[in-house]
C-alpha cells in the first residue's frame, strides 16, 4: 500500500518539517499522558470532619477504574456490606459509620495522595486499605506518617511487611504462602504419579511473583524440573508469546501468577493450541466466580485450581450472614461472591473489634490492640505478628468441578482432601479441554 499523505502539489520542504516533529513530540507527550493518567477522579460519599456526635468517618482509597477496577469494585461491595451490617446493629461505639471512598485509578501515586487528603484534609477517624499489594505499599508510608492504623485485606505481598512499619495489618492470608499447600501436595505424590516438569509464568507484580517463587522452591527439590520460568509486565495485552513458551516447554503442570484477564487469556490459548497440562493453578482469577466462568466458558473451567483463604460456605463467624446479605443486595448465588468481598469485610470486622475493645478511636491504642488481640472474621481467626501478617490464616486449594469451586486442605501427609461436608476428590490429572 501507498502513503496517504502523498502528492507533489501543495507540499513544501522543511522548515515545514517542524510540524511533523511537533506532532511526533505531541504524540510522545500523549503516550506518556495516557500511560500515566489511567484515569482519575473521586467518587467520594461524605464530607466534612467527623465529630464526637456525628458518624465515624472511614476513609478508603479504592481502584474503581484502571487495571484493578474489577477487584476494586468488589472491595467496595465488601466495605459497604460491612458498613450496612454494623450500622444496622447500632454502629460502632454507638455511632453510625460513614465510608468516604475515593478512586485511585489503580495508580500508586494517586493512592498516596488520596490517603494524605483523607487524613489531613477530610480528617477521617479511621482508614481502611486499598486493593493490591502494590497500592498498599505505596500508601502505607503516608498513613504511617500520620500515626494511623492501616488495616487492609489485599496487601499481603512480602514487600509490604519488610518496610519496618508498625501500623500495617493484613487480615488475609500472607500471599507468599498461597501456593505452598499445592506445591507440597505435588511434592508428596508417589514418584510414579508425580509430574516431572513444571512451567511458571507470572506478572511482574509483588502479589503474584513471590507465590510462584515459594512454590518453585518446594517443587524443584522434589524433582519437578523447571522447564519454563518467565515474568511479564503487568500491562501486557498480548499473552500469546508467553502461552506459546509454556506450550512449547510441554510442562506437566503449569503455575501462573495472574489476575483474571491473563489467566483467561492463557486458558484460551491452551485450548486453541490443544495443550493439556495435568494441573493448572493460578494465583487469582479462577476465584472470581461468575466472571471467571463468563470469561473462559462454563465448559472450560473443569480442574482449574486457585489458592485462597476463604470460601462461601466456610464455617466462620458471620460468614453465612455476609454471603446472604451479599446475595440480597447484589443478586446471584454464593458461588458468585468474589473472594475480594470477604477480604474487605474482614477489615471492617477486625477494626471494629479492636476499636470496641479500646472504647475510643485513639490510633496509638488501636495499633497496640491490633498487635496484641485475637479477632474473628468471616475469613476465620485473625492474629497479627510483629510485622502485621495474619499468622492464623490458612491456605486452601480450590478446584473447579462442575459448577462448583470445591475446597481442599492438606492432611498430615500433605495430601489435599475435601473440606467437609464436601466429599468429592481432587481431580488429577486434570481432564482435557
Amino acid at each position, binding site marked *: *500500500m501507498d*502513503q496517504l499523505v502523498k502528492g507533489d502539489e501543495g507540499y*513544501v520542504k522543511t522548515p515545514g518539517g517542524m510540524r511533523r516533529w511537533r506532532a511526533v513530540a505531541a504524540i510522545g507527550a500523549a503516550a506518556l499522558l*495516557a500511560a500515566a493518567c489511567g*484515569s482519575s477522579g473521586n467518587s467520594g460519599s461524605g464530607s466534612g470532619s467527623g465529630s464526637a456526635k456525628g458518624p465515624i468517618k472511614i476513609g478508603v482509597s479504592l481502584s474503581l477504574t484502571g487495571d484493578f477496577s474489577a477487584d476494586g469494585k468488589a472491595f467496595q461491595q465488601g466495605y459497604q456490606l460491612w458498613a450496612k451490617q454494623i450500622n444496622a446493629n447500632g454502629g460502632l461505639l454507638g455511632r453510625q459509620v460513614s465510608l468516604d471512598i475515593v478512586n485511585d485509578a489503580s495508580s500508586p501515586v494517586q493512592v498516596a495522595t488520596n490517603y494524605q487528603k483523607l487524613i489531613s484534609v477530610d480528617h477521617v477517624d479511621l482508614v481502611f486499605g486499598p486493593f493490591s499489594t502494590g497500592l498498599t505499599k505505596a500508601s502505607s508510608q503516608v498513613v504511617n506518617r500520620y500515626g494511623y492504623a492501616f488495616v487492609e485485606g489485599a496487601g499481603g505481598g512480602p514487600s509490604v511487611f519488610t518496610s519496618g512499619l508498625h501500623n500495617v495489618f493484613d487480615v488475609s492470608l500472607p500471599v507468599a504462602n498461597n501456593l505452598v499447600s499445592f506445591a507440597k501436595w505435588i511434592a508428596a505424590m508417589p514418584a510414579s504419579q508425580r509430574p516431572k516438569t513444571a512451567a511458571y509464568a507470572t506478572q511482574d507484580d509483588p502479589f503474584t511473583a513471590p507465590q510462584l517463587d515459594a512454590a518453585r522452591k518446594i517443587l524443584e527439590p522434589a524433582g519437578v524440573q523447571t522447564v519454563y520460568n518467565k515474568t511479564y509486565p503487568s500491562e501486557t495485552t498480548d499473552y500469546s*508469546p508467553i502461552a*506459546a513458551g509454556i506450550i512449547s516447554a510441554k510442562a506437566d503442570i503449569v503455575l501462573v501468577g495472574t489476575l483474571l*484477564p491473563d489467566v483467561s487469556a492463557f486458558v484460551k490459548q491452551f485450548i486453541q493450541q490443544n495443550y493439556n497440562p495435568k494441573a493448572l493453578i493460578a494465583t487469582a482469577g479462577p476465584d472470581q466466580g461468575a466472571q471467571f466462568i463468563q*470469561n473462559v466458558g462454563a465448559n472450560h473451567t473443569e480442574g482449574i485450581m486457585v489458592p485462597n483463604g476463604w470460601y462461601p460456605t466456610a464455617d466462620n463467624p458471620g460468614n453465612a450472614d455476609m454471603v446472604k446479605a451479599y446475595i440480597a443486595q447484589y443478586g446471584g448465588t454464593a458461588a458468585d461472591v468474589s473472594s475480594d468481598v470477604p477480604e474487605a469485610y474482614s477489615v471492617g470486622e477486625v477494626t471494629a473489634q479492636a476499636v470496641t475493645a479500646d472504647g475510643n478511636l485513639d490510633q496509638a491504642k488501636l495499633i497496640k490492640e491490633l498487635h496484641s488481640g485475637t479477632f474473628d472474621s468471616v475469613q476465620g481467626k485473625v492474629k497479627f505478628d510483629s510485622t502485621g501478617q495474619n499468622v492464623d490464616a490458612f491456605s486452601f486449594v480450590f478446584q473447579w468441578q462442575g459448577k462448583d469451586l470445591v475446597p481442599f486442605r492438606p492432611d498430615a501427609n500433605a495430601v489435599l482432601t475435601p473440606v467437609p461436608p464436601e466429599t468429592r476428590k481432587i481431580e488429577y490429572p486434570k481432564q482435557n479441554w
Partner: protein
Amino acid sequence: MGTELSKAVVDGVLTGGVYALMAAGLTLIFGVMEIINIAQGIFVVLAAYLSYVLQVHLGIDPFIGLLITMPLMFGVGVLIEWGFVRRLKEQNKSALSILVTFAVAIVIEGILTQLFSADLRIIKAWYVDKSLHVLGFYLPYIYLLGFVLAVVLLAALYLFLYRSRSGKSIRASVQNRTGAELIGININRVSAITFGIGAAVTAAGGMIFGATNSFNPNSGYDLISRLLVIVVLGGLGSIGGALVAAVAALVIEDVTAVLWSPIWASTMFFAVLVVVLLVRPNGLFGQTAVRAQ
C-alpha cells in the same frame, strides 16, 4: 527452539493484523486532520462492547454484527468530530486535540462503567476457541479471520481513498486545505467523514480485540500507548505503514519474548522504534514534507 521461533513469527504476524485494524483509524484521522485521537483506545473498547451486546442479547455473530457496529461507530465518530474536534482553533489543533479526545475517552469510559460495571467481559463465538492445525502449527481461527479482515478492510480503505470521489476529496484536503476549499470541497464534511471512517474501521479491530482478550471499560489505557507507537513507526498518516508497523511490532515482541524474556519484549520494540526514527524521522512510510497551508 526453531519451531518455537517460527510460531512466534506466525503469532506476531496474525496478532499484528489485529493491531493494524485498531491503529488504522488513528493514523487516518491524523493524516487528514492532524488530530491525535487519544480516544482511540476507548473506541476499541466501545466497539468491543457493541459486538458483545449484539452477541449476548441478540445472538448475532460478531462478524455479521460488524454490519451494525461499523455504521454505529461511524456515527459516533461523526458526532465527536462535530461536537468537539471541529470547535478547536487551527493554531493549536494538534496539541488541544490530545486534551479534548482524552476528555472524550473519560466520558465514554464513565458511561460504559455505568452501563456494564467494571466486570471483565469477552465476546464468544464457536470459532473463538478453535484452531486450524496445519504444518504442526495450531492457528486460531479468530486470529486468521482477524488477519483476513484486516487485509480486506485496509485494502478497501486504500481503494476508497485513491479511487472514489470522496476519497479524492479527503486526499485533496490533506494536500492543500485552502486549495481544496477554493475548488468547492467542504472541509468540515470531509473531516467528519474521515473521523467517522476512522471510528468505523476501529469497530472491526474492537470486535477482534474483544474476542481475544477479556475487557472492561478501562482496557483502552493499555492499548493507546502501543497504538500511538505503531502509527509513529509506520509513518503518521500511512495506512500501509500502520499494517507493516503493527506486524513488525508484534513479531519483534513475540520473538524477543521467546528468545529472551517477555519483560524485555516492549523494550526491544521501543529500541527498534528509536533506531528507525533516527534513520527515518518520519517513520517507515512517513513523508519528509508537509502540506502548505
